[in-house]
């Protein structure tokens, strides 16, 4: 099983996690810029964080044979802090970089006006830079937050295929499927969404535009939830090619729209290149 975890906060994880992920078949990740649990108080903190995402973290992942990408944005929680408005001015130079494969995470946390203003700015930046957008949906008031997010996406003029709406569940997936955006599911070790419910969603909605991630961070989370979802799919009768589609080809297709993926040609183009025994990538770094 080859796995692209399209949403995982590796900055918060240990090298043991990187090793376990590699052993589980993870060969590429995308780390969305988000908050750190402890609110930041200055623009400089973001600059250092973004530099870490395109510098040190990419190197750390490469040591374990994992290609690291990231997305950058002013996250919804901290969009509410006026001291951090200057972060928006930092974004363009990161959005020009290789390996920065989308604008995100953006979207709503508490559905405030400030969040909406920043969200709309992000959608504009994505259009300007030809990048996809990763949209975080709120954990509270999720249905309404998802509805308003889709409304803003529609109003932005971005093609729905350039937008991934994340952290969905049984209740919110329908409206996103209808809107034509990509559907992201974060599989947690708690009640928010688990791998067995995920398999039911896949059975009901099919595999088109379906994305599964672990969203692992500094909280209770599990960086191997992608693998566990793949196994649950096999147990439920899905084939290996179906698993490869959801866990590799779909996220590659979504983020490849950026033109900024760092996968080598074999990884990116040939769906079977690493299928048999993962020999292509063992011990190598992507070029």
């Amino acid at each position, binding site marked *: 099983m080859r796995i692209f975890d399209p949403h995982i906060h590796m900055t918060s994880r240990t090298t043991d996690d990187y090793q376990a992920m590699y052993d589980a078949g993870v060969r590429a990740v995308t780390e969305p810029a988000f908050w750190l649990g402890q609110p930041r108080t200055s623009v400089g903190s973001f600059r250092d964080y973004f*530099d870490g995402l*395109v*510098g*040190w973290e*990419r*190197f750390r992942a490469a040591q374990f044979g994992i290609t690291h990408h990231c997305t950058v944005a002013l996250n919804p929680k901290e969009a509410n802090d006026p001291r951090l408005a200057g972060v928006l001015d930092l974004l363009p*130079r990161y959005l*020009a*970089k*290789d*390996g920065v494969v989308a604008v995100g995470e953006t979207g709503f946390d508490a559905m405030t006006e400030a969040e909406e203003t920043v969200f709309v700015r992000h959608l504009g930046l994505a259009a300007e830079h030809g990048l996809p957008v990763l949209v975080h949906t709120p954990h509270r008031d999720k249905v309404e937050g998802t509805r308003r997010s889709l409304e803003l996406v529609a109003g932005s003029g971005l093609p729905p295929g350039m937008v991934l709406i994340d952290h969905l569940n049984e209740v919110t997936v329908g409206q996103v499927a209808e809107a034509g955006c990509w559907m992201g599911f974060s599989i947690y070790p708690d009640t928010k969404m688990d791998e067995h419910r995920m398999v039911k969603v896949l059975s009901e909605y099919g595999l088109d535009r379906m994305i599964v991630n672990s969203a692992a961070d500094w909280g209770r989370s599990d960086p191997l939830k992608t693998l566990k979802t793949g196994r649950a799919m096999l147990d439920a009768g899905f084939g290996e090619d179906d698993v490869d589609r959801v866990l590799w080809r779909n996220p590659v297709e979504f983020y490849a729209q950026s*033109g*900024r993926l760092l996968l*080598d040609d074999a990884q990116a183009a040939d769906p079977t290149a690493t299928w048999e025994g993962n020999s292509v990538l063992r011990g*190598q*770094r992507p*070029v």
Partner: protein
Amino acid sequence: MTTPAAAARLAELVTRVTEHPNQLPTLFPAVARLVGRGPTDPADRDGLLTLRVEDDARVTLLAAAAGSGRLDTNQLAALLTELYEEGDGDERRAVLRALDRLDAVDPRVGRRLVEDALRSNDPRLIAAAMGRFAARHLGADAWRHGVLKCLFVGVPLAAVTDWADRVDSELVRMTADFTAEREAAGRTVPEDARRILAAPRPDPGPEPSEDPEHPQAREGER
């Protein structure tokens, strides 16, 4: 690998940068996408000893900007600093490599960038920082610590330009201490450390505490 189309795109970029060196910060991050990416020597995938395709292209562009006649020394220094400080790992590596090729760089500015890179833990940056510029302009303390850092993180000594010319008894002492520490821990000592210990030096000074020809601790190549 570079294709004729990629070479043509690089030539186009060189023309642009020669006419408008101030456009380089916008173009710099996009270079690998336009010109290509990957090792020039398959045995040196990380570009510790050789310039990767994207490094070479970025260095070429920096040389074009420096040679354009449109930047004075201060402007060139400001450009290098901006590209380094705002760069990701790849872009920073290219700026460090370019220092080796540009003679017009104010050594104080170059030193600041090299010393920053030597504080990192990324072998690709450290290798790029220990090139010709460092050999010529880095102070003795910083240069010795740079060499020691190479031993620590596994950057081959061959990446350190003219290292044999700058070996002195202080570096030999530091290397001997490093070797003793490794041996005390039962770990293998890199061959490069032994090369330093065995190198002739202008200021022989006191003999190192460890015999460079010591036959033990060769059980495994790193």
